[in-house]
């Protein structure tokens, strides 16, 4: 047992840090640091730079751009990306549909989609959730009926993140409504968002932005070549896909970067004569979060180390722990930032209606409350923390 990184691993970390801090444009990283959303263009720019250096999809098969790294290397790559406020390659592409196509897709699909997916030439969105089928995904009602060499898709998806940017959507749809179990009879289908019959309606989230959408399919005709793998096996592919986001989910690097920023701002903000960072109560709250975060980082490293011994195709229930604690800590940082900002969390900076007046109060204030509001989602999406607890209860504690 040696709990330190090896010299090689430290050198690898240096290389990653150097890449991220010198190759990714500073304006993009600054925006992430401030907690603002990046634009579609910025996301594409960052990912293409990474892809050009072979760093967009290191966990893919080598044939399609993967790097054959160790789990620890993958961890370091992700940690440095997060700590240096680099927008991660689009997860829908690199962690979700890409690995599914690489594992289960036809050769034609691989050629058509994988390079474009890695390079974000195609922006993917995910068509899984439906109204009435949130955590209970398998009860989905969108149908795909075979009609000659097409499927005709009808139904409604929801919580579709950034569908407004997307070129393609990967969907779960019911191809055999008569299947014995509701998990059977579902297929995994790729759909061009330009196909007639698709309507996207934005859903405004709490902080006022638009990240998620409803997507309607009204007699949308999809060529049968766009079926991934076998018909009615979609549930298996979805499970494979959902098991793919394993350790990065804790987002320790993101929380570290945020704590650094909070400390920086807390030195600027004063209560009377005293800087916030010197208020004992505040700095103890901060330290308590740092402690939990360090523990989570070690927990994550233990899970990462354990990955070598596991079947990568199976979900690792330990990732549920990372999700639960990681989401709590990310959310805790948003409250600490509001503590720092104080009364100036109040004004709402109405970007969308073209306000270009200077911010009210300190320039870092405007994002504090919106991030708090928006990040409540972190403990809800991707399997709510309640679902994660059910998983741990069953898979680890044996209830």
């Amino acid at each position, binding site marked *: 047992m040696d709990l330190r990184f090896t010299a090689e691993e430290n050198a690898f970390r240096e290389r990653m840090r150097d890449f991220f801090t010198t190759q990714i444009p500073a304006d993009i990283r600054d925006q992430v640091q401030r907690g603002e959303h990046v634009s579609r263009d910025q996301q594409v720019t960052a990912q293409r730079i990474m892809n050009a250096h072979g760093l967009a999809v290191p966990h893919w098969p080598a044939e399609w751009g993967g790097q054959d790294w160790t789990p620890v290397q993958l961890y370091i790559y992700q940690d440095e990306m997060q700590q240096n406020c680099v927008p991660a390659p689009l997860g829908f592409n690199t962690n979700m549909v890409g690995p599914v196509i690489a594992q289960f897709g036809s050769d034609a699909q691989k050629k058509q989609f994988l390079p474009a997916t890695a390079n974000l030439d195609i922006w993917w969105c995910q068509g899984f959730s439906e109204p009435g089928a949130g955590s209970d995904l398998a009860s989905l009602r969108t149908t795909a009926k075979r009609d000659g060499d097409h499927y005709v898709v009808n139904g409604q998806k929801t919580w579709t993140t950034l569908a407004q940017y997307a070129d393609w959507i990967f969907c779960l749809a019911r191809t055999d409504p008569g299947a014995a179990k509701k998990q059977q009879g579902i297929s995994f289908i790729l759909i061009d968002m330009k196909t007639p019959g698709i309507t996207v309606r934005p859903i405004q989230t709490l902080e006022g932005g638009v990240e998620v959408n409803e997507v309607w399919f009204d007699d949308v005709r999809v060529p049968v070549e766009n079926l991934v793998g076998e018909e009615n096996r979609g549930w298996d592919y979805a499970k494979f896909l959902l098991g793919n986001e394993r350790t990065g989910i804790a987002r320790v690097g993101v929380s570290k970067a945020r704590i650094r920023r909070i400390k920086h701002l807390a030195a600027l903000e004063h209560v009377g004569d005293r800087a916030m960072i010197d208020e004992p109560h505040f700095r103890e*709250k901060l330290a308590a979060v740092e402690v939990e975060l360090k523990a989570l980082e070690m927990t994550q490293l233990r899970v990462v180390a354990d990955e070598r011994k596991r079947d990568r195709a199976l979900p690792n229930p330990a990732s549920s722990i990372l999700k639960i604690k990681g989401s709590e800590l990310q959310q805790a940082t948003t409250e600490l930032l509001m503590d720092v900002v104080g009364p100036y969390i109040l004004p709402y900076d109405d970007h969308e209606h073209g306000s270009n007046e200077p911010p009210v109060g300190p320039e870092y204030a405007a994002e504090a409350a919106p991030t708090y509001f928006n990040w409540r989602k972190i403990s809800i999406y991707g399997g709510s923390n309640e679902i994660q607890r059910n998983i741990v209860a069953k898979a680890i504690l044996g209830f």
Partner: protein
Amino acid sequence: MDFDLSDEQRLLKDSVDRMLADRYGFEARKGYRAAPEGWSRDIWAQFAELGLLGLPFTEAHGGFGGGLVDTAMVMEAFGRALVVEPYFATVVACGALLRHAASEAQMETLVPGIAAGERVLAYAQVERQSRHSLNDIMTRAERDGDGWRITGEKSLVLHGDSADTLLVTARTAGQHRERHGIGLFLVSADAPGVSRRGYPTQDGLRAAEISLAHAPAEALGDPAEALPILEQANDEMLAALCAEAVGVITAMHAMTVDYLKTRKQFGRAIGENQALQHRAVDMYVSLEQARSMALYAAMMASDPNPLERQRAMHAAKVQIGRSGRHIGQEAIQLHGGIGVTMEYAVGHHFKRMTMIERGFGDTDSHLAALARLGGLIAA
């Protein structure tokens, strides 16, 4: 000790509840917010008609002689419905300041217009550096004949953009942060030297940054010793905010319980999960604790002993803040996806609760202040 409403109180409560049920649904409120001022003059007139705008003023001044408990009752109802009209700014905040600081003549000039819904007031107190301190004031007032001229920058003035009359704190003497030398002044919003920049707030209300450059002003009370009055009025504002918060979290809790009972997953209501039931119970315990402390705040905000009063208000704000955060976060979590959208009411309540928790001194600052005062229980 008697927790029952009087007949008059029951009547008032019923009429407010009825009006809000009729006129203040989720969609209607959206419409009011879309108006140029961010609220509805029509609803405001209804408030006047029901006597709400004159509620805390004596009948001699054209008001209705209500007490802090009556105001709390109205604010709780407004919290449930998330009322966006400037009731807190005009009637609660400026109402309290006027009652404690204004002369008879000033009351006679101002109150009838307020009660009739013709006059909207805002309280300009916060400054960029002041954070939660009432005496951290850099705006200055200087004598100008019989009156005063005010110069300075006021910030986060609730409904400062639509108010026609401003109550402004300014320093006439003393060093920065000194407790003495502070006055309260009446400034017309369209007076020369007043410029305002209005903006929406995170919780769907409005506020303004206000610049004063030699703006003409009239003093309310002693121009150098207003701080005790500001503190008294601030405590009454806190009591009203606590009551509003109780309305906000009552609504969130009710929506959550309702959602748990109706939302189905895996073939049954999610509320059949005992873990979620227990969390709803913990929210309920938290709610009852907040409700109790809001009552305590309403009772103590007029306590003749300023130290006891302040201890009580700190304690109330702490409880409200903790319960509000707990209930708000759980309400969103238990609603899942729809909780984080603007399309469902619970998120709007969550945002209002967050701003109440963090406005007028956040939970940490009130807890620290209470601890410095030695807590609630004498050793």
